[in-house]
């Protein structure tokens, strides 16, 4: 785009910022916008293009960053009151990579507090609205990151995905969301929710954009001991074997969502791909496994928020009282719930029954997927059981909310790459998507395959908010 001088980076930045200026008042997707810094950097990028010294495809592209990823000198709040005043003294590894590539950050995006939630309703700074219909949630926890891409207030964004937190909001907002293979993208500088599940990934308008950004952020990082040196599998995507997961094509998943899968199946069969039904019975346990492992890990990961070295602090006469009170005031309800659940699952006398058992079932799920991928190249399913739901619809019973991650959680448990791409609209004119899961380290093949489906389905809609505003 900049290469052939259609536009200058600073012009694109101004345009994106202009969009933000009218979408943000409705959506509340950005928690903070970096206008001055962004404009300055985009002008530097202009000059690089003029001198033909551009840093690559991403030089000058405005990208939004989920506010649980540290950028030096800026606030990282995790949408929590706890970190309302916290300024990061260092860059996350993905941020360093993107800076080197000449990316401009539009700002930080809203999320469910500490990435715990599926609707962005758990943000201490108020929810983000869905650009397709502000009465509906954008999904979560990367709701802000999905909404900005959908609304055009950023060209792309980074989110984090622990149980579906990139794919589910991408699906709700009608954009592409990719969770890479565990360990391919450094977690250094991502504020941990559940370390063995968390993974940073891009949210974009097109699958190609996802490929470009993933390419930039992936790779071994010596600062993250769980990071891997990936040897990517490269599949010939001309004729592939696709498995349809039976457990996600039954009760519990809406007909609308199932229909999207069926639609894609027909298109794939037309192209001569082989589609078979597969069954992984233990995926029905995935939610239970997830709701023990993630809270257990988070209960320790979030212990460091104690008012001692950073963040807010409540006054008290002893350190212990101060920590108790600070954590009481600083954390919201959902965060407390998960910390308590995890604390209980790890406590003396309950460890084997809960956390220990969950780890073992997780191991079994991993080997079940291994077996399944002996038979198929990709697994196709809905991304979410339903399209976006309305605000308040699922806040009464925690399980209802948790169930919206039903189809996305297994990929996190098994560390698999998984992508969500929009395929159609619901009867309420809300986006619907399918999810493609692949073998570990088949990230580029998953992306290639998703791109071929993207071409087949020709999803040519965009968020209402944008159209209305463009018309006016």
């Amino acid at each position, binding site marked *: 785009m900049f290469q052939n001088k259609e536009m200058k980076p600073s012009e694109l930045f101004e345009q994106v910022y202009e969009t933000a200026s009218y979408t943000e008042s409705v959506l509340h997707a950005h928690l903070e916008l970096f206008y001055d810094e962004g404009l300055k950097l985009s002008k530097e990028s202009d000059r690089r293009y003029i001198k033909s010294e551009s840093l690559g495809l991403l030089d000058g592209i405005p990208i939004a960053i989920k506010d649980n990823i*540290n950028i030096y000198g800026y606030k990282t709040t995790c949408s929590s009151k706890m970190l309302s005043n916290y300024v990061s003294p260092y860059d996350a590894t993905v941020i360093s990579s993107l800076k080197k590539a000449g990316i401009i950050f539009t700002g930080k995006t809203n999320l469910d507090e500490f990435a715990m939630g599926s609707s962005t309703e758990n943000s201490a700074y108020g929810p983000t609205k869905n650009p397709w219909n502000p009465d509906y949630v954008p999904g979560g926890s990367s709701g802000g990151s999905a909404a900005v891409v959908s609304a055009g207030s950023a060209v792309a964004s980074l989110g984090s995905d622990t149980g579906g937190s990139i794919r589910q909001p991408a699906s709700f907002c009608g954009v592409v969301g990719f969770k890479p293979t565990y360990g391919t993208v450094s977690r250094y*500088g991502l504020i941990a929710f559940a*370390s063995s599940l968390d993974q940073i990934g891009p949210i974009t308008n097109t699958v190609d954009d996802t490929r470009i950004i993933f390419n930039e952020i992936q790779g071994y990082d010596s*600062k993250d*001991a*769980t990071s891997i040196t990936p040897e990517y599998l490269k599949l010939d995507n001309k004729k592939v074997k696709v498995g349809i997961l039976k457990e996600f094509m039954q009760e519990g998943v809406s007909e609308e969502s199932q229909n999207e899968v069926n639609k894609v199946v027909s298109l794939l069969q037309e192209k001569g791909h082989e589609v078979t039904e597969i069954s992984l019975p233990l995926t029905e346990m995935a939610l239970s496994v997830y709701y023990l492992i993630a809270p257990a890990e988070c209960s*320790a990961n979030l212990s460091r928020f104690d008012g001692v070295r*950073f963040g807010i602090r409540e006054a008290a006469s002893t350190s212990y009282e101060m920590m108790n009170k600070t954590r009481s005031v600083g954390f919201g309800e959902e965060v407390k719930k998960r910390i308590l659940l995890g*604390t209980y699952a*790890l406590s003396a006398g309950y460890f084997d029954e809960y956390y220990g058992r969950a780890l073992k079932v997780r191991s079994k799920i991993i080997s079940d997927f291994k077996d399944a991928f002996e038979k198929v190249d990709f697994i196709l399913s809905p991304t979410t059981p339903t399209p976006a739901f309305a605000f308040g619809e699922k806040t009464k019973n925690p399980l209802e909310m948790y169930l919206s991650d039903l189809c996305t959680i297994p990929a996190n448990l098994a560390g698999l790459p998984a992508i969500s791409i929009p395929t159609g609209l619901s009867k309420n004119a809300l986006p619907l998507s399918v999810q493609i899961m692949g073998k570990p380290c088949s990230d580029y093949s998953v992306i290639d395959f998703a791109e071929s489906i993207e071409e087949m389905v020709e999803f040519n809609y965009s968020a209402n908010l944008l159209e209305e505003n463009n018309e006016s």
Partner: protein
Amino acid sequence: MNLKATIGMETHVELDTESKMFCSCEVIESEEPNISVCPTCLGLPGALPVPNKTAIEYIVMLSLGTNCNITNEGMFHRKNYFYPDLPKNYQISQFDFPVGINGSLEIVLDEELHSVEIERVHMEEDTGKSVHEGSGRIDSAISTLLDFNRSGIPLVEVVTKPVISTSKMAVAYIEELRQLVIELGISKGKLEKGNLRFDANISVADENSNELGTKVEIKNMNSLKSLEKAIDYEIMRQSKQVEKGESVIQETRHWDENKQVTISMRTKEGSADYRYFSDPDLPNMIIDQEFIKNSKKKIQNLPTDKRKTLKESGLSLSDSNYLDKGEKWLYDLYLSTVENTKDSKSTFNFLTGELQGQMRKAEIDKLPEWVDSEKLANLINLFETNEVSFTSAKDILAKLLGEDIDPKSYASEKNLIQSSDDEEIRALVTSVVKDNQDIVERLEDPDDKLVGFLVGQVMKSSEIKVNPGTVKEVLLKELFG
């Protein structure tokens, strides 16, 4: 009822690495707070741990040095508890797969060797340092100041089985462990710097009972002296309770250096539930044979080996232990000197008594470069063969420490060589016997103490220029035939 005490020791050894355990901050000794800290060791949001290879090598070396089995596939666990100087509010430690298990350490107590069974050797990270600021009394702090320079420094925890029975044995164990880590080169081993920190678990029970009594943990002992006193005090305290038929409370107590008593610590955590679980930031750790082999290569001389060498040279176990625990140069000097002397004990005595004593007095901590084992051996041989008196030998040593002399030529030059000439001695003896007729008449047998007196008189009359052995020989012949 006769009571016996059972003691188990938990010792934290601070490893001497360049960087910290899980981050690249330099390990420093500094008064200036919070200057060697980073997101990881400060527990900032988003930071991650990456373990230090040298620290793992060191713990493998220590595990081998304590005859432990090495766990080939292990992992790190999170130990959860809230304390302001623990940045993440969990400590990365090891739980069910410590690096070393079921070992033993040979220690010396008086003239006997004992083996202290080691339960486990595991890796962990240090906390920050708290300074309690206030009225000067520890129990009325108005605020706590935190410095995280120490946070994340690698620690190895060595835990013994409850097999120690006295405070002296506990001290000998710590001395041995300290020597081991110094010898391995894995820790500076300075107690006063907190490089080794120990807690003692003490219980008292009926001598005939197979069961242990209630365990009390004693913390805050900063020296071997306080370790010994704290254990003795605690054994006495518990014994009194048991004798009175009272039950001992399971608790943690602090050694109060000023009051010389142990005092109960009210713990904040209630019943500790550390919720150990495998750290998801750190994948399973494999310590394979190759790694163990490489670590083994770095082990040169274990204290037990040194002790063996010393014993083989003819020293007693306690003298061997003394040199083994002492400074390395002295150990080396002894071994090279004893090669050229006849008597190991007198060589040991001369080096550890005379030489070290004179060096202390002269306030020198390093031998002058001209003083080598050959000269010292020559000097020792001079008085061993009675060519010079011991007194002269001491004078020669003093001279030698000041300037480069050859002991033997110096002795001749200064006329210090004792005569063994029978004629000369016989004349002196005859003269002394004549002058001391009253004593000679009181002599009953050759073992009489008064013989020594007469020898002394002969020596005196010769101005200590004759060989006392020969004098005695001649004297006895003269008197008893």
